């Protein structure tokens, strides 16, 4: 059976189809949650941001521009909400490299997760502007053109931010002896 595309689901949502909203929720819950986590480095905050994102989608459904792709709309809301969350908790500034390590917990249960957590800790040391292009590229799998659409910036700026963000990450990881 062919699954309805986002555009069709949004049109059904706007007409009042709650089931269509649920299909979108199932489709985007995981990417939204993961993007929020990578921006915030907290499962609780990612959960709360995910809730807020979907409720905002629901509240603003009639404001959705049908010319726009749904993923770019919801990802933009996700990143904006994540940055708002960082502002509210006074964590907008990149954290000190020495403080970036997670203190432990379930995320560090296995070696591969430790690698993931080290990368996550390094991500938290770069500014949210760089972090969000990295998240869009590597967590959400967006192309340059899609990142530009989500963030409403030129592709040239996307490439520039990606390059700078990666250079900074490379330096942070190198300081930790993870990448030469």
């Amino acid at each position, binding site marked *: 059976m062919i699954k309805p595309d986002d555009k069709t689901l949004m049109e059904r949502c706007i007409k009042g189809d709650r089931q269509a909203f649920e299909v979108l929720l199932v489709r985007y819950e995981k990417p939204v949650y993961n993007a929020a*986590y990578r921006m915030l480095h907290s499962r609780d905050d990612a959960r709360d941001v995910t809730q807020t994102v979907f409720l905002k989608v629901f509240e603003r459904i009639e404001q959705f521009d049908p010319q726009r792709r749904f993923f770019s709309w919801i990802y933009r809301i996700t990143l904006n909400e994540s940055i708002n969350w960082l502002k509210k908790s006074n964590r907008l500034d990149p954290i000190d490299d020495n403080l970036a390590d997670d203190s432990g917990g379930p995320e560090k249960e296995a070696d591969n997760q430790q690698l993931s957590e080290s990368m996550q800790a390094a991500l938290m040391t770069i500014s949210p502007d760089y972090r969000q292009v990295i998240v869009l590229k590597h967590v959400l799998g967006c192309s340059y053109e899609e990142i530009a659409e989500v963030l409403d910036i030129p592709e040239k700026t996307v490439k520039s931010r990606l390059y700078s963000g990666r250079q900074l990450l490379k330096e942070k990881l190198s300081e930790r002896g993870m990448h030469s």
Partner: protein
Amino acid sequence: MSIDSRYSDLIQADIDGEISAEDKADLDAYLAASEEGRALHAEFATLAASLDEIGELVPPTHLKHVILNQVPAGSVSSKRPGLVKRFFEAPVLGYIGTFAAGVVLSLALVDSDQISTGAFDDMTGLVGTIANVDSVNAVHDTVSIDESEVAGTVTLRSNGPILILDFDLSAPQTIQVIAKYSDQTIWFNGFAQLESSGTSVAAEAGTVKLEMNGKRRYAVYLNNPGRRPASIEMQFVARGEVIYETNLEFGT
């Protein structure tokens, strides 16, 4: 010697799979002649692979239900955005602001024998930290509930002799939550909620009963002066039927 920006751009585009055939041929020729270029290419490729391999997290199982329960039933166009917006914009200090009302309500409903067991401790400090309890209060047990009638988490924390039942739940219809503890040395010590009118509480010896609907975050405080192991039996009731049961354990 630094790498020409054209080639650093092409290196990145190559790693990202966004390079044209013509540019790829140009880049390959450049890399064949540039050790520095090859080094940058290798570093970026390693970094990109590491970033692509960072694990994908699975959202909490109850999250979908929590969200759906906050969306008003019926058509999307019949939504009531004010309620949701109000909830998410509610300041954390709302807990403190409504705590007094919660305690007054609790005092009004709590059994007189309970009140005589001991004076209510000042919970203000605990209430103020409820939004950041992970770092302040020890977590002893937690359950995730993923039922159509109620979804969310209940966490048992402690701070000194105070046991804190931290409820973060969403229910589309009114439900009752019953918490029972058999240890008679434990007594109901207070109640706090983010919204003052959303949840009601009644307590008697060994039992606290709550009634709620919608998205609610609230806490029940029990005094466990002996800090003895305790088991709290939880029941969730909808339409007069038990829909979910669980136990939360402290020090057992």
